[in-house]
């Protein structure tokens, strides 16, 4: 059985690990959902899936470019370039969103979940408007978001490089990249929706009390589901052998 080979088992484990990274990423990103779009909650005003997948797919592009430019690039390098791409994407999203919150909606950036910002140490509760859950993207949320998207991009790069290792000897380089990329995208979507159900739509980032409560069970689910996807991915390679 090809699946019981130690290298294959390690690769399935790596795909499970990258699922866990993507799942963790979703918890780090300050997702505000519809309330944040109306500046009534802290975070970026769109859904978990959109943010995680948006930054993750940019990470996928940068990591695949790395692998294309240097096919012998080490896995760490591919993951790092994925992390960089995803972080730049989310940081620019948050920066542009921050400009709109500050100069368009005119709200002070404040988190309702903590009394003092853990990074800057500034008071938060004074600035939270009555009846809201905070507004804008405070420093801790911004930093947490950059770290989170980095994890997601690294996870995407990891799956991609594992799959390319399986598919590129079987079909042409372009086709292998297409198949591996599409599969990574599928795993990405599954793993960004699962934790978004866990957090129930909105989370502020690493300082949110929700973070500690939901991370273990979400990560467990993602690891199991991603490993299942890993088994499927390796069997696909078996189907493509001429």
């Amino acid at each position, binding site marked *: 059985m090809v699946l019981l080979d130690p290298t294959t088992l390690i690769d399935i484990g790596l795909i499970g690990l990258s699922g866990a990274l993507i799942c963790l990423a979703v918890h780090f990103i300050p997702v505000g959902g519809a309330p944040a779009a109306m500046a009534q909650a802290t975070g970026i005003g769109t859904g978990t899936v959109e943010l995680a997948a948006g930054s993750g797919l940019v990470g996928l592009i940068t990591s695949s470019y790395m692998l294309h430019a240097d096919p012998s690039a080490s896995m760490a390098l591919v993951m790092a370039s994925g992390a960089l791409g995803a972080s730049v994407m989310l940081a620019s999203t948050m920066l542009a969103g921050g400009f709109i919150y500050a100069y368009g909606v005119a709200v002070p950036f404040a988190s309702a979940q903590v009394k003092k910002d853990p990074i800057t140490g500034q008071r938060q509760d004074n600035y939270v408007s009555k009846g809201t859950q905070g507004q804008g993207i405070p420093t801790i949320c911004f930093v947490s978001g950059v770290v989170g998207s980095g994890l997601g991009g690294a996870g995407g790069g990891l799956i991609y490089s594992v799959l390319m290792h399986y598919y590129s000897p079987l079909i042409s380089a372009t*086709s292998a990249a297409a198949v591996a990329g599409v599969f990574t995208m599928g795993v*990405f979507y599954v793993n960004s929706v699962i934790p978004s159900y866990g957090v129930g739509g909105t989370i502020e980032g690493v300082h949110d009390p929700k973070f500690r409560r939901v991370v273990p069970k979400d990560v467990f689910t993602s690891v199991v589901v991603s490993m299942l996807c890993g088994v*499927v991915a390796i069997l696909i390679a078996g189907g493509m052998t001429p």
Partner: protein
Amino acid sequence: MSEIKERSPDQLMVFGIIGGLLGIYLTYLLPLAGERIGGKIEIVLNTIAPVAGALGAICAVIWGADAVRRVAKYGLGTGVPSIGQIALGMGIIAAMFGLAIIKTQPLAGPVVAVITASIIGFIIGWFAQNVIKMKIPVMIRCMTEIAAAGAIIIIGYSAAVAGNYDFVNNLIPRVFDNGVILFIFWVGAVAMLHPFNACLGPDEKQKRMLYLAGSTGASTMAIVGLAAIITIGASGAITMILGIVLWIIFYKKFWDEVYNDAASVVGTGLIPKTEA
């Protein structure tokens, strides 16, 4: 309010699976039948075969939209789009697996894909229900259904672009290499999630939503036809024209339903000012 007749989940499931698989299989079987008959009929059958795939996918879109409706009614906390995206995410993994793993038995491919999707959907549904504890009673069943519908949508529209569902010889060069698969992934997801996302609210009715699902499926078919013109030529034109015709028909039906339902809304005027 009068009694509203609704299509049962089982009815729509049978419609989605049978219609979807029939459409997908026709893309493979019609050319085979044409080969037996030969002559001009062969050319005709070869040309119309890929169109069947897109028609099958529309059946799955309608089924998937109803499954989304049943589960999203409970309020997911993340918006309806998330469930459409996870559906196609599971569907694309299962579709690639099902079509690739079958080497010598091409007829088994789509069925294996649907079964794999159901298994992945069941596992994710079980985890969502029992580990993440979402407390939605229909979660497991609906997750299984939307994953299977997602797989049929992917295979159906891909077969319409590639000619048939042979993974290595047709799908990879005609759908994966040129990136059409990404389009099928996104627009297929929107076709499935949009109907309930647009119709949800206090006066949501199944009939109206199903017509909208038909219209989103048909509009996807029209654009898939445009991609198919580039990859396989004449069949693509038929797919596109048929897609536009179906889109207009379904959209008119949806339009009529909206007018029909809106007629029962009675104007009550402003809220009367009462003295406390």
